[in-house]
């Protein structure tokens, strides 16, 4: 899997799924729903995001509800990867099932500001931040090979359809 380069969109700790996509929008078709991503804390986020952007967050990203619409709207907006200090369990699994690389990376959150260029290598478990005057490398957890395969195939359903175990 190749490394992914994009602009960092930075969020704090405990970003819950009601923030990622508020419950009242869950029955909208996905293409309409994605306009409301992150609405409670950052209205207009959907309009700012550029496909290829990377979310950088603090602890416990995606806590709360099991709604798969949370990673689904981020994917629909073109978010290419999510790097956090830690993830809530169900969100982490849902993101992989939708083919979104999710990496736990300690120390990155405080070293990145909104708009920095960031390069994520899921296979190596590495994250590089490009500053105006150089770059810094951070070590992230490396996903097991079978989960990297699920991500590479574009999610669990595509993986199973391609004959994956």
């Amino acid at each position, binding site marked *: 899997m190749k490394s992914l380069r994009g602009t960092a969109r930075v969020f704090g700790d*405990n970003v*819950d799924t*009601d*923030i990622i996509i*508020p*419950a*009242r929008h*869950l*029955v*909208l*078709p996905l293409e309409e729903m994605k306009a409301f991503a992150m*609405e*409670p*804390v950052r209205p207009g986020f959907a309009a700012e995001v550029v496909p290829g952007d990377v979310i950088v967050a603090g*602890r*416990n990203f995606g*806590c*709360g*509800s*099991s*709604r*798969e*619409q949370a*990673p*689904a709207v981020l994917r629909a907006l073109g978010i290419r990867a999510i790097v956090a200090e*830690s993830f*809530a*369990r*169900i969100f982490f*699994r*849902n993101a992989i*099932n*939708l083919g979104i690389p999710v990496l736990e990376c300690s120390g990155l959150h405080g070293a990145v500001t909104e708009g920095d260029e960031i390069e994520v290598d899921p296979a190596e478990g590495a994250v590089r931040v490009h500053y105006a005057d150089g770059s810094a490398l951070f070590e992230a957890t490396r996903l097991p090979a079978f989960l990297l395969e699920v991500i590479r195939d574009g*999610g*669990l*359903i595509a993986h*199973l*359809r391609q004959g994956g175990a």
Partner: protein
Amino acid sequence: MGKTIVERILSRAGGADAHAGDIVDASVSYVMTNDAVGELTIKAFEELGRGMWDPGRTVVILDHYIPASSPNAARVHALLRRFARNHGAHLFDQTGVCHQIMLEQFVRPGDLVIGTDSHTCTYGGVGAFGTGVGSTDGAAAMATGHLWLKVPETVRIELRGALRPNVSAKDVALHLVGTLGADGATYQALELGGPGADGITTEGRCTICNMAIEAGAKTGIFETGDIAPDPDAVYSRTITVELEVVEPMIAIPYAVDNVRPARDLAGTRIDQAFVGSCTNGRIEDLRAAAAQLAGKHVHPRVRLLVTPASSDVYLQATTEGLIETFIRAGAIVCNPGCSACFGGQGMLDAGEVCIGSHNRNFRGRMGHPDAKVYLASPETVALSAIAGEIVDLTQGGTP
């Protein structure tokens, strides 16, 4: 090496000796989905194209946006009804919160139940392993009857002594989430037992397990009868809770682990109060609220919403006269379902304050992002609705 309760259940469901850290391909007892996430679940299921594993063990429940609250809700409901009928799966069409329906109709001790809703952990109240998954995992389990699970480490919660009057299982749940923190049990299971557990009813146990996810846990489960750990089971840690010292507790905005004793919040002005949800919408909860409200009236500024967790609960409350008590006290009695918990009804304006017996107080969940939600026991909610402000039940409740 001895096993904890979840290690025992997952060993049986996985057909192999399993300990914390192992990955098991577990055979599930039931798969449940609902109208909040059902569309994605059906889409994933159909893309998989494998047919349904066992319609008798697949349950579809319409409980979130009911009665249909928007054209899109109606569209999703129609989709789910068609799906259930086409496959012959169980369909519960607006008769209660999914978890209450599952407890009333299906779940038995020792079961492994997968639900596309994070509060599936509620079933630990009857000694079942329930865990929430996303739509894709739910669809995969519907198609195969299996799901891979990492066996979690277990945190043992040892309960001692007995609760004081006017202190309830909800206060224990809030106390635990406050102690553990919102991610304090991520990737872990909570196993509850000890001499103090005997004094907590099955309904109260469901309330406590319901909130295990608010500490990030994969499940919460009570020791009950045969559903017990081996004497030499290995725990990641043990937390002892002396029930005598638990006070009426409140989770304050905007995090469930932001927990303080009610006495610190006494006097906080409220606009709305809510008794209901998969946390506290059962008959004991309605009785507890009615005991505070009998012969009294809610504060003129306050809307009190009461939502029984299921039609069975609603009927029982009617038989016992509780519904009349609520109506005479000025409450709005809503149809069984998820109701105000996630803003399905009873939404708040900017700056408004609600106290509720449910499980989440996240920003924007119940309406405007600048509204505030406080979480408490049904007793505390009812008494606060009368006063128009948060009340410490130990200072003036009806015992």
